């Protein structure tokens, strides 16, 4: 038998079930040159495995974290679009079938303005706190995300309600704005107290 090819030598490191492997093994036992070649192959592989680990030149985690946050935001926005459409349809249906009492228009408008001002103030507080730039634990992140989702829901409802006409509109807007203020207040609480007493 001729000396073994590299392909045969390489296959000898495997389970040895391929055709011709048994014959090649017998050859290696009797051929010093092929045995040496196989030894060198083993040594080469061992040296490759022993090569030092290469380290990344910079920390990639901040970039990955930002990409994950962007991705999460995109997915949530997409979901909100679907959910918002369904919500708008259900609200319109509710308006058709329900008999809503007349609000006191003037006092409702003033109360809405107050709620809007409170809402703006709370949003400024959150912006100043800048939660995106802070490290947060998983529970806080989940609760904050849940609150943000509910606020986004409310914003969608506000948009829909704003476009409506009729006596009940202002009263509904007032109710939504007050709920928004409560949620923003809870969100401030989550970020500042790290969700310790929110009770969600």
């Amino acid at each position, binding site marked *: 038998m001729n000396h073994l*090819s590299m*392909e045969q030598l390489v296959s000898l490191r495997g389970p040895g079930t391929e055709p011709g492997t048994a014959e090649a093994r017998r050859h290696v036992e009797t051929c010093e040159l092929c045995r040496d*070649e196989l030894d060198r192959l083993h040594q080469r592989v061992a040296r*490759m495995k022993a090569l030092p680990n*290469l380290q990344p030149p910079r920390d*990639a*985690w901040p970039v*990955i974290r930002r990409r994950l946050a962007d*991705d999460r935001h995109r997915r949530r926005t997409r979901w909100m679009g679907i959910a918002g459409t369904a919500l708008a349809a259900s609200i319109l249906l509710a308006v058709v079938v329900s008999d809503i009492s007349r609000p006191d228009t003037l006092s409702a408008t003033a109360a809405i303005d107050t709620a809007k001002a409170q809402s703006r103030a709370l949003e400024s507080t959150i912006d100043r706190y800048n939660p995106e730039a802070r490290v947060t634990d998983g529970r806080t*992140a989940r609760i904050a995300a849940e609150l943000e989702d509910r606020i986004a829901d409310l914003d969608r409802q506000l948009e829909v309600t704003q476009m409506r006409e009729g006596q009940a509109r202002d009263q509904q807007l007032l109710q939504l704005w007050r709920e928004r203020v409560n949620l923003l207040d809870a969100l401030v609480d989550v970020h500042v107290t790290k969700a310790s007493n929110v009770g969600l």
Partner: protein
Amino acid sequence: MAETLVIANADAVLARARTGDPQAMEALYRAFEMPVYNLARRICRTAEDAEDVLQETFFELCRSIGQFRGEGSLWGWIRTIASSKALMRLRRNKYRDTDELEDEISPTRKEDAHLRMDLESALDRLGETSRAVVWLHDVEGYTHEEIAEMMGKTVSFSKSQLARAHVRLRRWLGEEAAI
């Protein structure tokens, strides 16, 4: 190597990562960033490509961590993602396998007879495909069947690439025998 990596409270970290806990995800990144980068760097031509593979790997890992059911080793799962990303990067960049070109021009280059490289340089000199096969098979322990599947090639292709890679490494490392 990475098979022996241990994360403190691995099950708890995984469970938290599945719920989207950013700290748990970062813990996974810290535990596996080096073996993933090392694998990517050994396969890709440039450090920049390897960094991209590192990012892509952990971005996908964090998005799909819920799909990992713990049936195999965590490193095995991560390594498969990393290998796949690295091979994808090779295909995208369409590197020219320079050693194959050289062989076409001059199958027995005279200077190779006097060439004696260190192993790092010799590996670096291999063509992209050959280097990927030799690294995945000999160091990471993938079978030819697994490599063929990841590369979209045949098992024979993987075997011949491995053999050719070793012929070249042997020559460049000055290990030519008198066979």
